[in-house]
């Protein structure tokens, strides 16, 4: 294949630079805010550095909100639990939609998708009543279960595409050898779908990690169980918001996930390659 000329290389780097600038600009702003003293968060003209900038907020935030580490841990725990449970439900269903013929197949898939159309906010009060009836208020489950329910449709939709791409012959062969359906699914399909599973699980995990706010504030009032997005609200005081510490905490809070992604990255992109989303 043709190689890049120097100018093409410069063009690619410039393009990536502009693209990343757009993606990272708000993070730059958040980072700058985390360095500023509270009474000078907002200063004009804009300063890129000043003598009173410091990393103080990154140490003081742990004292200001002593539970901060716990909130980050809660977020990871809730997102992990959501991912595990969701995958257990998603995998068989996605397999059925990818491989089997059954009545109401298209219609039921459409119904699943329509769950995405109901915004969680509108369902809050009925959901609250339900959580109370089930006795789940103020437990981790109150945040995990609705999280799972709203991610199942997306997960099925995405995973189905990968499973469809696995050659049918492998499965047929196992089937002909007298293996049961379940055995085939477990021993033939799942290993082949590995990368696809990683992609879908990552998508579920990240979504569950970043969007924990609504269910958490509504179904839980136990301060020990807050996920990070709710915990960050503790930097809001009666008169002042400690923006510098809030931003420091938010940036610190996403670091573990980015680190995990760093390791998954290679695998993830490979996984996407194998399947990609279809239809």
């Amino acid at each position, binding site marked *: 294949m043709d190689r890049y000329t120097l100018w093409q290389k410069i063009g690619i780097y410039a*393009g990536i630079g502009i693209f990343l600038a*757009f*993606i990272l600009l708000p993070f730059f702003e958040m980072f700058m805010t985390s360095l500023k003293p509270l009474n000078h968060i907002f200063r004009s003209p*804009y300063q890129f550095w000043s003598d009173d900038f410091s990393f103080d907020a990154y140490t003081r935030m742990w004292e200001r909100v002593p539970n901060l580490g716990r909130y980050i841990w809660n977020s990871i725990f809730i997102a992990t639990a959501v991912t595990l449970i969701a995958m257990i439900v998603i995998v068989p269903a996605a397999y059925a939609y990818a491989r*089997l013929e059954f009545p109401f197949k298209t219609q039921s898939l459409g119904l699943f998708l329509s769950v*995405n159309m109901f915004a969680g*906010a509108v369902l809050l009060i009925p959901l609250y009543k339900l959580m109370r009836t089930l006795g789940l208020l103020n437990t981790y489950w109150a945040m995990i279960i609705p999280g799972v329910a709203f991610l199942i449709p997306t997960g099925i939709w995405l995973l189905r595409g990968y499973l469809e791409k696995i050659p049918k012959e492998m499965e047929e062969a196992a089937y002909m050898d007298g293996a049961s359906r379940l055995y085939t699914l477990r021993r033939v399909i799942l290993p082949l779908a590995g990368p696809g599973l990683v992609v879908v699980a990552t998508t579920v995990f990240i979504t569950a990690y970043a969007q924990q*706010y609504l269910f958490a504030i509504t179904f839980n009032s136990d301060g020990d169980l807050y996920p990070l997005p709710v915990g960050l609200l503790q930097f809001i005081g009666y008169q002042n918001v400690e923006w510098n510490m809030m931003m420091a905490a938010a940036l610190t809070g996403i670091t573990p996930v*980015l680190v995990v992604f760093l390791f998954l990255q290679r695998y993830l*992109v490979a996984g996407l390659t194998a399947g990609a989303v279809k239809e």
Partner: protein
Amino acid sequence: MTLAAQGTAAPERMRRKALSDRAFAWALIAPAILFIAVIVAWPLIETIRLSFTNASLAGEEYVGLANYQKLFSGGKFGEIIVRTFVWMFFSVSLKLILGLIGASLLMAVVPGQALFRILIMPPWVIPIAMGCLGWLWLFNGDFGIISGVAQAIGITDGPFAFLAYRNSAFWSAIVTDAWVGTPMVTLFFLAAMQGVSRDLYEAAWVDGAGRWYRFRRITIPQIMPVIVSMALMSAIWTFNSFEIIWILTQGGPRGGTTTMIIDTYKVAIANLQFGEGAARAVIIVIMLALFSLLYLWVLGRVNRKYGVK
């Protein structure tokens, strides 16, 4: 004799296989259905029921179609519907365009590629509210970088507050929404592009096709199913995207950024008029369902055209 026996046995086996397929399929889907039925379906039905009542903090009474009639009698709701679709169209388009550009750039085999791929992830991972605060400050007239740079290079005379005017606030919200959605779209496009068979490119290259031609004639058609699929998911999410607008403008100024979901939230949660709010929610679902049906129909045609199953 043996032939005849085989002749009847084969359909019989097929039939039994189909039957077991069916039962097996339902067994596999059952957990998902159960989950959705318990957690989502009941609140959903409850919402539909509430939409026929005047439910508020004070209790509820059946009012028939009154909530729906009230909605469509004022001119405002029509305006909000139109605005919501405009918002959805531009935001989704922007995400797809940025996703395509981003994915193409990240496909380029250059040093630093792995790092760049990680650096596009943060907007997806950060709690949406926090990312929006970053944008809130960027759009600030006096203290934001954008306005500051614009003044420094002489585009504007004085500070310009992006969120203060109907149009600029609307576009600012679109940019922010696109920002939140771009990483996921980029990543899925990137993967789809990697899935395109190299043979196709090499054949085209041998024929002397340039990069742009190859992108247009090979990449785009090959990843079209993914583009179309991502577009639908993004459209649904964007339609229901709430936090971004709420944090930036709360639907203002003068309703300039009030989409259907913002309107619904204001009525149902801020005003505690659950009945009227529920009617709005039901209309959102009907609109999205119609939109999705239309979309899937188009999708079917696209797939046929590009020879995808």
